[in-house]
């Protein structure tokens, strides 16, 4: 059954994955289905993306299949007072005036697939909204994407905003995007930077471990 549910998620078939999950609920614990079926499937999709074997459409379809299947599993998990062990909570978005979303979407997917609870704020997100959401969901990480040289300064705005409110040390701030590099991350005082979309998870986990905030391995 786990293999079947993994296959359905990888194929982006939410209907099939939900059907399998529904039919197996009497016999299999929903949390086991998540840990043995859904999560490995999401990881497989992420790995294949990293190897260039599949692309954003397949990744988005897998994410939709995940969401659809979780609608079946979540109520049962709540009944049993079960929850997915999360690595950390992330608030992610593309900075103010920047409307590019592809890289940010992939990072959001990769983090979800790796056990992070991800709150995606979308595009054109002002610094205040990043921080407001982070406070609301008790986030560990704020991840800000900027794709243009003229929108990079809004990554610094987030850090300035946090500092002005005495919140800077509360959050790990990650920056990324096509024009962003390590020099810029250092200049603005970001905690982490990933050159490739696939770097974000490793950078986040490393920083969490350094701060002793990791909630899993």
């Amino acid at each position, binding site marked *: 059954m786990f293999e079947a549910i993994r296959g359905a998620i990888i194929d982006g078939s939410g209907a099939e994955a939900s059907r399998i999950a529904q039919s197996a609920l009497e016999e299999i614990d929903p949390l086991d289905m998540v840990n043995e079926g859904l999560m490995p499937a999401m990881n497989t999709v992420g790995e294949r993306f990293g190897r260039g074997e599949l*692309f*954003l459409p397949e990744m988005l379809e897998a994410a939709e299949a995940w969401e659809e299947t979780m609608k079946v599993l979540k109520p049962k998990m709540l009944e049993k007072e079960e929850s997915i062990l999360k690595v950390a909570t992330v608030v992610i978005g593309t900075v103010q005036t920047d409307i590019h979303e592809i890289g940010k979407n992939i990072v959001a997917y990769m983090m979800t697939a790796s056990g992070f609870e991800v709150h995606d704020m979308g595009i054109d997100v002002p610094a205040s909204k990043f921080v407001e959401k982070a406070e609301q969901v008790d986030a560990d990480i704020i991840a800000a994407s900027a794709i243009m040289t*003229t*929108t990079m300064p809004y990554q610094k705005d987030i850090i300035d905003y946090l500092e002005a409110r005495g919140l800077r040390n509360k959050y790990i701030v990650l920056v990324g995007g096509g024009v962003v590099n390590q020099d810029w991350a250092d200049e603005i005082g970001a905690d982490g930077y990933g050159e490739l979309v696939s770097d974000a998870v490793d950078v986040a986990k490393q920083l969490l471990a350094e701060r002793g905030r990791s909630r899993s391995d």
Partner: protein
Amino acid sequence: MSVKDFDMKVFIPKVREVVKKYDFRFDPKTPCPWDDDLADRIYQAAMDLYVDVGTYCTSTERVIKFTRKEVEEAVYECPKEAWFGEGPDRVVFKGRKPDSPDIPHCHVGSGTNTTEEVALKMVEAYGRITRAKTVSIPSVTQVGHLKTSSGSPMETLAGINMMRIGREGLRRAGRPGMAIINHMSSCAAGISTVAASHSEFGARPSDGWLVAPHAELKIDYSSLNQVAFLNSWGANIGQEAGPILGGYAGGPEGTAVVTAAYAFHGILVARATYHLTYPIQIVPVCSTTPGMIFVVSISSQAINRNLGVPYYALGYASAGSATKQYFYEAASYLCAVHASGMGIEDVHPNKAVLTNGALPIDSEFTCAFGHGMAGLTRKEANRIILRLMEKYLDKIKDGPKGRTVDQVYDLDTMKPKDELLKLYDETVRELRDYGIKLK
């Protein structure tokens, strides 16, 4: 329609449908195909795609659509040449066919990050390259000690400063009428672009303004306002697009179709008089991989064979300037676009992220390549590209950062230092063995 529905329910399924219908296959051994039928099928697929999908306007959450008849009429009526510049520096940029014996339109410069102190010298150096027909001027992201940010007054001031610097640099080079065709490299917001385009600051309608959609086939009021302004002024509008390989369009086949489809968006929505394409791979972030070369090559052939508009391509190398790997990557990309009928532009070094990292010698190389390789066929280009890839492909994920202009140029004379000249001469000799002639 929500943007998510546009992506998931309209765009992605239609891309898959046309790729299947027209039976495209990317072969890594043929990054620069010479199959005219394949190019024509890409064109038909792109038209099918555009007729069914249109352009999504994020400001209104509505789709701008055209009938096939409207698209075909636009194809017939759209500008097939663009006139740039003034006086003796005035040039015409025309469409060109694959395997053409003609010298391509050689466009130099880059809109990458440059400091204000260096920008004027860079533009002057670009202007001194006599075979360059048009120029891109740098982007400055700081005015005095203040960083500029999109949509802010500082961005408007940066745009005005660069407009003045660009014009002054070309005057100093003795080419006051030379057209700058990447307005406004320092501005992302439409309002900043329009404000910095006041003729008092040096802008002329015979320059060119790049109007950007975003991935894929989406536009907003900021860009449409630029179109409204530029079209009313009679200025050259450039349709620019950077489709993403690995993004919504999927693999190389789908991305090639979408790249070609942007030309229809360009003539219908952006009212373009010229077109720039710079597809890019999401991992690794550059355009010199086999899949990327295929995308830019076959999509250009599709447009150049069937639409015939002024069309040029911009590539991004993994390696930075003043490295041998940069020139291998640049030569590989230029082979593909030159043979596919494109106008050529400097391949941008180090993924365009290193401030002051684009060098005038890159522009010299572009022009020498454009002239020296006139008559390059796609078949021969493919052979050279495969050999060049052996030199750089295994290093592409982590290319050398390269050097900045202050490190390898004498900034008083803007002459390359000996170490750069030595590296360039060595590399040119090596490239000659691969069949690359520079003139």
